[in-house]
């Protein structure tokens, strides 16, 4: 790593929560508008997080603190590595450290909701983690490397990997936990598990998780954006458009069942990946 790498790393780590918070705020505003409401101010997520950070530290179990910190730090680390264009597979692996701890933190409390939520989150991870790596394999087939640097030099992945792009959008939809995929937690808590996996996190630790979610959201959006790395502005627009579509889907569908999600995501993931890569393999060369 060179000095400029360190600078980029630091800049990404500092800027990402701001972007993530803004996007979350926009998400809430747009959702409200879609529902015919006025909606919260765009800065609302920041108010929420700042408030949560300065609330009383309430825990059930010391381990929760640890889990929340690791979740946040691994998210930060993965975003930082993304910014310096490191190995994407490594980034996913680092991200999954946080997720594992996130789940363990919830399992470590005795609240039935948080435990069932954690079980569901595990199922959810089972649904999207493989897909995420499938996406990388698709990129590898085009770029011949897992290094983001090499992948980005390819320019317009979207043209080669349209179906893989769909798979990644699906991952985004599962990851941001919107209908029809909000099983382990839900944005507005009106589900059978209250807030599921987040039920027993409170105050500052909930805030840490919220911030980590922003990091992951931005990371996923950035992964969508590199499908058009020739011009990253267009890439960003594409990824925001996908995000907007996810909001719309959230607003036109009910929460589905867990089994449905697992079979749906795996089918889509495997079929689309195989078809797309097969296409590359047989048609393009």
């Amino acid at each position, binding site marked *: 790593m060179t000095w400029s790498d360190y600078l980029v790393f630091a800049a990404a780590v500092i800027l990402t929560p701001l972007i993530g918070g803004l996007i979350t705020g926009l998400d809430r505003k747009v959702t409200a508008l879609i529902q015919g409401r006025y909606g919260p101010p765009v800065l609302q997520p920041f108010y929420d997080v700042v408030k949560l950070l300065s609330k009383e530290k309430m825990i059930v179990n010391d381990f929760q603190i640890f889990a929340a910190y690791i979740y946040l730090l691994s998210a930060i680390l993965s975003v930082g590595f993304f910014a310096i264009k490191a190995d994407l597979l490594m980034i996913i692996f680092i991200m999954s450290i946080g997720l594992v701890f996130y789940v363990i933190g919830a399992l470590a409390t005795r609240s039935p909701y948080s435990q*069932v939520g954690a079980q569901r989150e595990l199922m959810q991870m089972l649904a999207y983690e493989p897909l995420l790596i499938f996406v990388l394999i698709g990129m590898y087939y085009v770029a011949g490397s897992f290094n983001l640097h090499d992948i980005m030099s390819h320019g317009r992945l979207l043209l080669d990997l349209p179906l893989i792009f769909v798979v990644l959008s699906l991952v985004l939809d599962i990851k941001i936990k919107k209908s029809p995929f909000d099983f382990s937690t839900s944005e507005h808590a*009106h589900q*059978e598990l209250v807030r599921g996996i987040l039920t027993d996190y409170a105050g500052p630790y909930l805030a840490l998780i919220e911030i980590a979610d922003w990091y992951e959201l931005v990371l996923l959006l950035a992964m969508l954006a590199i499908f058009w790395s020739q011009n990253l502005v267009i890439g960003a627009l594409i990824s925001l458009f996908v995000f907007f579509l996810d909001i719309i889907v959230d607003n036109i*569908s*009910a929460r589905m*069942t867990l089994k449905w999600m697992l079979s749906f995501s795996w089918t889509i993931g495997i079929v689309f990946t195989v078809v797309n890569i097969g296409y590359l393999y047989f048609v393009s060369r």
Partner: protein
Amino acid sequence: MSDKSTIPFGPQHPVLPEPIHLKLVVEDEKVVEAYPAFGFVHRGLETLAQKKDFNQMVYVVERVCGICSCMHGQDYCEAIEELMGVQVPVRAEYLRTIWAELHRIHSHLLWLGLFADAFGFENLFMQTWKIREKIMDILEATSGNRVIISVNIVGGVRKDINSEQAKWILKELDDVEEQLKDINDVVMNNYTVKERTVGIGVLTKEEAYELGATGPMAKGSGVDLDLRTTGYAAYKYLDFEPIVEKDGDSYARNLVRMREIFQSIDLIRQALSKMPEGDINVPVKGNPPAGEVISRLEQSRGEVVYYIKSNGTKFLDRLRIRTPTFANIPALLKILPGSQLQDVPVLILTIDPCISCTER
């Protein structure tokens, strides 16, 4: 693996604003058994009948449940009127019917919203409640209060609807109907909604009858029971058919409720057009004579039964309310085992529970 988990459901739970406690025994996510515990709303208001006179009790029974409060008051008043042999004016009967049907619409819309929320369809919840506000406006404009409208008194009603208001109501109802058609389309055809409701919580006709289910719960299973056909209040003057669906699953119950909303809109239109001029109440003198009476009517959730025993004083001897949800609880406990955990809110809401009714 025979490992079974136990999961609480309620009393403080966002899906179910009302406090009911279910202890669910689940295997993975499949519900094996459900043990209910009630009593978080139990106030014991039936005994208030011995402390408050029969006129004041109208306002108490209205607060048995805030959602179909008007119908509680109506049923109570009809019981007392039958006991005392009071004939209420026809216009009062019509007015009672209109308010009752408005309540049915608002109750069904409220239910639909909560139901949508239970399976995670937030937008549907918002849209339904947006439409529901129009009904609430009608109630507020005609009675002075949004939820507990306190219009029924022994001997008739307290508030009148003038022709200007009637016109406005009709206009609003057209608007509501228009918007509801879109919602109806979603409830009936949306893939995700169907996935979450079709075949979920099937209650056969025999089971529904045997377990004493009432209202949409029974109607969704093909039991043709709608007390409005017995022609209390103004229903004898109105033209309608009870709505029955056969499948007995959550989807069928949805359909019953959705169709009932349109039916209610139609009934209100009929009632407003047929409503004669005249008094809205008759003065009631004296106390109810000693005797027992049972009065029933069709609430939005089903059949409510009022049992009243009077001893000739102004205080009633015994007031007992058998509410529809109370009758639907056995059916709920029947359909819960075997379902998935994520369907539990759907199933609970599919009986349209009103716990404060159940526990009084």
